[in-house]
């Protein structure tokens, strides 16, 4: 394993601002979803990405538009970071026909194939071999795309983790396996289900690089992903990147997360990825306080617009339940 500093990242102002804006967008979007849920407007359940924004944005900012991602039940952030239309995500979360999946998928199954979002799976770890398959497809089609495969610490104990990463490794497939280790799989603390400190150590078993990064540092995530993507595009195979991070809220909407020690929560809240990036941008003069406030205002307005769009959108007609089973 190699340690990563963020000193090597040299990004344009435009790119940095875009990354910041996207992180804010994810945060405000998720807070809005939570608010709508509290008003009983969201059917089913939700798994919020709040607190992990640096991972999705760091990873997706290092990808091209034609690269692929696979996502998870906690996937809104991944999709927003890859460039999905927040209006259509919100409409899907509310079960509306204008949503990405015409109301058939909901919060856990957002997909946008036109920008490489191969969809979010509700089965923990199921996306890992699917990402490897997209990698195999790239290899056979001889393009230089890459796949970023998001999954959590919980998925690292699924058989699909072993089978999928091994297959990607032996065939040198262009896949970046991104483990978002937020320390808990639902209420199960990762240290009680894994005898090693880092998921990334498992990379050794597959003969691929394993990297641990500060998942609350968007530039560290970006750099690790960029390196992994370059390596993948060169045909040198997959990388396992473990991003240490923390979800600000519970596992799902019913979870107050009482199993997490107060001091732990406070320590992680102090490492809020958005605040850290904002401080960095202010300190380095990339953004001024006024510009930051403007970004927040604009983004908040954009999110309000998503709510209006989603609320005003029609539900699907019941018979639409029978469509799309077969091609």
């Amino acid at each position, binding site marked *: 394993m190699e340690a990563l500093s963020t000193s090597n990242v040299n990004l344009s102002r435009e790119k940095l601002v875009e990354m910041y804006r996207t992180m804010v967008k994810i945060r405000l979007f998720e807070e809005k979803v939570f608010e709508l849920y509290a008003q009983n407007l969201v059917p089913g359940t939700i798994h919020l990405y709040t607190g992990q924004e640096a991972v999705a944005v760091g990873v997706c900012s290092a990808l091209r538009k034609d690269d*692929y991602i*696979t996502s998870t039940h906690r996937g809104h952030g991944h999709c927003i970071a890859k460039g999905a239309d927040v209006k259509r995500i919100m409409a899907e979360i509310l079960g509306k026909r204008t*949503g*990405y*999946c*015409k*109301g*058939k*998928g909901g919060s856990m*199954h957002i*997909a*946008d*194939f036109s920008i490489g979002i*191969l*969809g979010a*799976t*509700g*089965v923990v770890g*199921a996306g*890992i*071999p*699917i*990402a*490897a*398959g*997209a*990698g*195999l*497809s*790239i290899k*056979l*089609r001889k393009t230089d795309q890459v*796949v970023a495969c998001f999954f959590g610490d919980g998925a690292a104990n699924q*058989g*699909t983790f*072993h*089978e*999928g990463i*091994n*297959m990607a490794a*032996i065939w040198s497939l262009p896949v970046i396996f991104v483990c978002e280790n937020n320390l808990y799989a639902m209420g199960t603390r990762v240290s009680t289900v894994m005898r090693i400190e880092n998921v990334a150590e498992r990379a050794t078993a597959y003969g691929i690089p394993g990297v641990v990064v500060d998942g609350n540092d968007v530039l560290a995530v970006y750099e690790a992903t960029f390196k992994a993507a370059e390596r993948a595009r060169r045909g040198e195979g997959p990388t396992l990147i473990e991003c240490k991070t923390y979800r600000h809220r519970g596992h799902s909407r019913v979870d107050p997360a009482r199993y997490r020690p107060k001091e732990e929560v406070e320590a992680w809240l102090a490492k809020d990825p958005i605040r850290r990036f904002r401080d960095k941008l202010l300190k380095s003069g990339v953004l001024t306080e006024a510009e930051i406030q403007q970004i927040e205002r604009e983004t908040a307005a954009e999110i309000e617009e998503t709510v209006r769009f989603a609320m005003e959108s029609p539900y699907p007609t019941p018979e639409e339940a029978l*469509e*799309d*089973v*077969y*091609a």
Partner: protein
Amino acid sequence: MRRITYREALREALREEMRRDPTVFLLGEDIGRNWGGAFKVTEGLAEEFGDERVRDTPISESAIIGVTVGAAITGMRPVAEIMFGDLTALAMDQIANQAAKLRYMFGGQAKVPLVIRTPFGGGVNIAAHHSQCLEAWFMHIPGLHVAVPSTPYDAKGLLKTAIRGDNPVVFCEHKLLYPVEGEVPEEEYTIPFGVADVKREGSDVTVVATLYMVHKALKAAETLAKEGISVEVVDPRTLTPLDKKAIINSVKKTGRLVVVSEDCKTAGVTAEIAAMVAEEAIDYLDAPIRRVAEPDTPIPFSPPLEQYVIPDEKAIIRAVKEIV
């Protein structure tokens, strides 16, 4: 017409589709040049198409199908081989929750053009982990197509349709059928899904059967013909979609139905077909429906035990005589 085996017919379909379409590729355990597939279906294909397109995999059924799904939704047409049908259990999430559901869950955005070829069936004394017929599992999952070819002709035509289609197909083969010969034309043809084939015309009783049971039903029909009972044997060829019309039309003609399948009786292929006819065509029935199926046991090893549980010609004859 020339005669080739079921195995050769499958191989021809794979070869022709791989020549025709560069996005078609094969993957599975030991399907490559060292072995040519446990049942030799892919023998010689790695030599023609290379190891990239005839890809040996680790023993990782879940990832074999997961990789197949990932390749299918990004522009390829993969054909996976699962060495024994029983082992689809290891890949069931990827088959039932991913391959089958992605299109629907994503509101029609995804196309999942993949084929999972796998041999089912007993009769070769390899016990409970290598002998089951599990077609009904896949009939129960919306989003999957299920093909059950009983002859070399059907095997080739259906496999080509499966590969060219845009839906995930569980392509059920039968171990005892691989060496069976039949007529297969040299020229190009495909067989559409959802179109049954009347394998033998008759007027007294309809026997619906699939896979190897078609051959047992035909033998039973031959024997019964000598006793003056005219049996019509209908082979659905695909269980999903199911050609209900052909089955009902035959029942309208004969007024009697026996459904034969090698899978377990409870909640199995025979249950579904019998229920469908009871629901949609009971007025045409002159006698109760009879089912001939495996008696809800695992498949045992020892020859007398195995022969006892797998339906045979005698069981079919007995069932026919009960209602004629």
